[in-house]
């Protein structure tokens, strides 16, 4: 399985975080994970992921940043 792609979109103004995540999803290989670090819960992104058959988990880290792990639903 290929190594995960990790991107950090903290501190960026909308819609830049969404744009960067969409671009990264374009590069995702089958079975590969995308790990996104972001400073708030990206609810608009979750809708898009659900609609396009991606699985994701969202975790609030102790430093109050969110870590979203995304992979394509097989």
């Amino acid at each position, binding site marked *: 399985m290929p190594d995960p792609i990790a991107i950090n979109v903290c*501190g960026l*103004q909308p819609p830049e975080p969404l744009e960067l995540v969409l671009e990264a*999803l374009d590069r995702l290989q089958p079975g590969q994970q995308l790990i996104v670090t972001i400073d708030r819960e990206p*609810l608009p992104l979750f809708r898009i992921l659900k609609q396009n058959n991606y699985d994701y988990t969202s975790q609030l880290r102790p430093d109050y940043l969110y870590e979203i792990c995304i992979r394509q639903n097989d």
Partner: protein
Amino acid sequence: MQRMLSLEQTPPLGVPLRFFLTAPLFAVAAGLLLLVLGPDALLSRWTPALLALTHLLTLGFLGLIMLGALMQILPVVAGVEIAYPEVTARFSHALITIGAVSLSGGFLSGERWLFQLALATLGLGLFAFLTSCWLGIRGSESNNVTLRAVRLALLSLLITAALGIAMLFSYAANIQRLPLPLTDLHVMWGLGGWIGLLVIAVAYQVVPMFQMTAVYPAVLTRWLAPVIFSALTGVALLMIFFDGVYPLSTVLQVLAAIAYLVFGITSLTLLYRRKRAQREASTLFWYLALASLAACAALYLASLALPAMRQSPSFPLIIGTLFLAGFAFSVTNGMLYKILPFLSWYHLQSRITDRSRKAPNIKQFIPEGLARRQFDGHLLSLVLLLAACLWPEIFTRLAALAFTLSSALLLKNLLGAVQVYRRHETALAETKPAPVPD
């Protein structure tokens, strides 16, 4: 090759846009009305003219924008869905627009048929909207703090609307009103419940998201809206069943005012502590709104200790101006400068099927210089309106002129954004997609 993501099965941009473009027209109308009527409109809070003006702002401007926002931005930003959004939007927008015009016309002319028209249209329009919200929220999986506060805001809208409808019914049918403090309850639920709680709910999402602040403290988001709603409920029950201001009622009013003060100060602190501070127009609108809210709450608390303040005829006008023009108007004005470009970008992005293309930079939709100029106009009009509360003979028409021009400029800026959107939408439709590599 991966296919492009579909962003959304979202209703067309025209659905929320109709709310956002009609609303400033009501603000312009309110300004023109005050310009024509002059200082006599501000003699007391109960002049028919002031009732007309207030409802042009609360129903026409604030109401339409809040409804439009609920229909589109909350689904996108907070996972709150409205049932049958397209139909509900068209229906409720048309009815509430007609209703707001006829209600204000009714107040100004005293004509019963206008009150009857307002009763029918506002009743139906708000009922349709609230039903659609209820169905959507009931079926929603989300349970974030914004959604919980939105529920309380919608309940407050239901109560406000019911009280308003009851009063309208008495005007329309020319019957004696119920011996209840309907007007005071209507104002309390409308301002402190519907408008206030909805702003709080939306702020939890849009302040961190668009103003780049830290998130609101969990203890605040958990308790603020329920505390305010419970306090208002307590005050209402005491008003209805005990017909007077008991110590308990005053305590509850203090509680609600302090809660709003806490919200204002917390929000101001979040904004002040941002890592990358930017002095955009939308940020300045938030600062102005929160400062007005804090001043309004502080004045209200002071008046509970100083009865002489409450006796002054200017007092309710100042409180109303600070809350409506200072807080609510500033918040919605500023948010439009973020929401409309974001929605335009979002809709354009969803139409792009060619990987080599991107939606335009979001800053293109409303140039910062234009937004900033409109903020200056709005700030001036607020200062003049407050001055008019104290010295109506001197400042009323000046304030009205400033307010009219500022609102017209807001409309112009929003129309500019729509033009940019249309231009890009046409360009996308005309360009053929790039050939797919083998």
